[in-house]
């Protein structure tokens, strides 16, 4: 990859018809392990080396001057010159307002590569062995499938303004399918998880949680007809926050495209705010965060950006291009979400009756309105110590209305792509059963 990146950089440097260029080399090495209930079914070793190039050049015949943009990707062993010729030709045909590439900058020293992951294959096998030990001890639930991807990616970025940056990131991804019951009473749950650090993959605790939830799903009843407080915790809360509405409406690119109505200095909510005020950062410097990086794909340094303070948008999450177009600071790509601690002990948030949602089929609100109606895979009706599981039905509401009336826990935690309160109690969402 280094040779290909160097050759591409030299070929780009030699051109006199460009306004700018960026070259990004990626070297990926990975081990994949696929296991059924009893035995490993497949093992794979993968290698991938690519270099992607973005070129900017004057648009053909444009007045006032405009900027053309195109990108190409080189595979291992490929001669970069024909690809660059294509990219320049393609770019010169397109028309965009002028913008510059990021200048050289000091990149933050954010931890991304876990030194505990030395041998990728051994790491995968070790994690799987821990899972098998945990699963063997469980009588209520059983493992149907486990997939482990352990990867290390090295990224080098150079651009025409003299920026040079380098980072290496480790990543562990797992997918487990867990079963409980037999025949028509059999149910399954899926656990998907990505983390960068071995210590953040607590196999035993994850197994314990997912096994208990699978067993609960097996004895779950139908969803109730309900309207009232809904609690989200941990991974479910991270899913809610990362479901697209905030990232879209706070995006400089979306704003430039007319896809977002949010404006700095104005409330992000469409009505009155009750509950705790919303303050939110998007951060690419959370140690071992899923979206963490020393720099983004343009070469902008990782930052912790205050997007929303007390319910008011502070700035857009914008790369260099859209920051230039909108006249706002360049913050770089949207990253992990951080929230400050709330004011209420978690125990108080859980004390009064509520519904808790553990996971949905696919939580996918409309990105511009925030409206959602998502099927519930597992929820609980909670009243004191009594937790009654249910499955099926829909959770109905609006992401922004929910955030306008929520209380956050004082206790905080880290969930891969979200760091903040471990529990949120939303004032009111609806739950409806699948059948009348």
């Amino acid at each position, binding site marked *: 990859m280094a040779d290909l990146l160097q050759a591409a950089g030299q070929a780009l440097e030699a051109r006199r018809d460009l306004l700018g260029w960026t070259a990004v080399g990626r070297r990926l090495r*990975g081990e*994949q392990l*696929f296991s059924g*209930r009893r*035995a*490993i*079914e*497949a*093992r*794979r070793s*993968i*290698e991938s*080396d690519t270099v*992607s190039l973005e070129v900017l050049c004057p648009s053909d015949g444009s007045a006032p001057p405009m900027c053309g*943009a*195109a*990108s*190409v*990707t080189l*595979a*291992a062993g490929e001669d970069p010159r024909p690809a660059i010729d294509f990219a320049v030709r*393609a770019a010169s*045909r397109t028309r*965009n*307002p002028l913008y510059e590439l990021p200048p050289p900058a000091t990149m933050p020293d954010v931890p991304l590569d876990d030194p505990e992951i030395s041998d990728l294959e051994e790491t995968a096998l070790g994690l799987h062995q821990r899972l098998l030990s945990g699963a063997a001890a469980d009588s209520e639930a059983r493992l149907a*499938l486990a997939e482990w991807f352990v990867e290390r990616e090295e990224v080098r970025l150079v651009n025409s303004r003299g920026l040079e940056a380098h980072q290496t990131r480790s990543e562990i*991804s797992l*997918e487990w399918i867990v*079963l409980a019951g037999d*025949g028509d009473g*059999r*149910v*399954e749950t899926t656990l*998907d998880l990505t983390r960068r650090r071995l210590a953040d993959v607590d196999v035993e605790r994850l197994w314990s949680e997912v096994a208990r939830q699978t067993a609960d*799903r097996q004895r779950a009843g139908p969803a109730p007809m309900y309207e009232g407080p809904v609690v989200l915790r941990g991974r479910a809360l991270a899913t809610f926050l990362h479901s697209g509405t905030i990232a879209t409406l706070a995006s400089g690119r979306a704003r*430039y*495209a*007319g896809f*977002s*109505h949010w404006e700095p200095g104005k409330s992000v909510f469409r009505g009155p705010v009750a509950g705790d005020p919303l303050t939110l950062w998007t951060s690419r410097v959370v140690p071992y965060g899923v979206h963490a990086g020393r720099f983004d794909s343009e070469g902008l340094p990782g930052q912790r950006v205050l997007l929303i303070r007390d319910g008011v948008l502070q700035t857009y999450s914008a790369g260099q291009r859209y920051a230039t177009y909108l006249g706002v600071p360049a913050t770089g790509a949207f990253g992990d979400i951080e929230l400050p601690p709330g004011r209420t002990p978690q125990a108080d948030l859980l004390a009064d009756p509520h519904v808790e949602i553990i996971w949905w*089929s*696919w939580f*996918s609100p409309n990105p*511009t*309105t925030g*409206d*959602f*109606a*998502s*099927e519930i*895979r597992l929820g609980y009706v909670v009243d004191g110590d009594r937790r009654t599981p249910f*499955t*099926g*039905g*829909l959770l*109905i509401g609006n992401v922004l209305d929910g955030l306008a009336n929520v209380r956050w826990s004082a206790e905080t935690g880290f969930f891969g792509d979200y760091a903040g309160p471990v529990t949120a109690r939303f004032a009111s969402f*609806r739950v*409806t059963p*699948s*059948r009348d």
Partner: protein
Amino acid sequence: MTSPSGSNPPPVEPIAAAGAAPGAIDLPEAMAALRPRLGEAVAALEERTPYAAALLSSRGGLSILVERAEETITQLPRAAGAVVSAFDGQVLVERSVPGFDSQGWQRAVDRLRRDLPASSRRGDGRDADPAPQDFVTVARLPARALSLEDKLERCRELRDRVAGYDPRIVNVRVSYTELRETSVFRSRTADLAQDITRLRLQVFVILGQNGDIRYDWLSRGGTGGWELVEIGDDELAETVAGAARLFSSERIEPGEYAVVTGQGVSGVLAHESFGHGVETDLFPKERARATDYVGRRVGSPLVTIIDDPSLPAAYSSYFFDDEGMLSRPAVIVEQGVFRGGITDMVSAHQLGIPRTANGRRQDYTRKPYARMSNTFFGPGQTPLQDMLAQVERGVYLERWVNGMEDPQGWGIQITCHYGREIRGGKITDRVFAPVSISGYVPQVLETIRAVSPSVALDQGTCGKGHKELVPNSSGGPHLLLQVHLG
């Protein structure tokens, strides 16, 4: 899991045709150079294992994005590499390397050979080399016959045409994607090559009114040429009208409704119910309830569901899968009775059932799984107007956003961008948004009481869970059924 949509007119004549003469295929140079060496590698590995195979795979393409004030051309990241596989009946072991460099390939073969556990079983010995079979997507107006400038201008023309339809339009995003997949598969008995071109054109319209943003979209595509992505004025006008109607949309009151599905929504229902649920790699893991339902009734007798990678011009068609099976249709549900699933090689072997041509990989860095291709309900006999006439109060669901499978619990979720009220047998301008279908698959399929004759398929992307993304298509006729909406 499946995501975004568009619908395609029913294929009226073959576009993707097999059988080009060997030598006519235009493989990447390095791939063509390596192809003759694959047979010896397979033979060498089968000295230590009962079955070995080689796959050379290159997937890449071109994307053109044209908006109100922005244009970008991207040569899509190419995933090009070689896979060498060995299967002893228990464990599939593979090595993947990037590119088609002969030294890298030989290293992968040598490493796999070295790592294979000692086995007393081995292949049946090297047969005479199989005759090469090469296949190429055929098109009336091949993408490669159009210059980059032609394609860009066509996208701009479309953007400019739509922009004048309504003063509230704040942006029109035209996105053209051209995917090219070339692959070579070699086993003891097969020497196959294919060159597939998939096109997709999407028009995304954004309207603004009093600080609110609403949008709708339209998509066309398939395997073939530019003739598949031509879009008429009526369709564009209806897309703009669809976005405009959303300014006055309401949330639907949750409950049971008589629903007529658009052809795309029918497809998602097929895809999420008896698509994912019958991928046979789930069967040995007890992950699919369908395992216990072979030969049993799972829906109304009006229900037939087919997966067909050989369907002419459909977006997810191919000539052979990533495990060397030549494409042919698989009937999954026939007149309400579950006939059988779709397979990859390993699960077919484990279950002792015939293979279907559904062993697919995201790319050379991923393993093959049993995956859908073009999945659709078979046609019925009730015209759409007759179907609507049967509904006094109900909802017409046309534009889907995503769907999610639940192969074990047979739950289903389909999220639609919006639904339109049906009242007195007519579709009105009253709009509900968003609308989600939820329910229990056999109950949903059992309620189907009319099926239209016209079949159309969408273009989309399908994941196995939330990963392993492959081009995918689903569709069908209009369906009249009773489901829970929220």
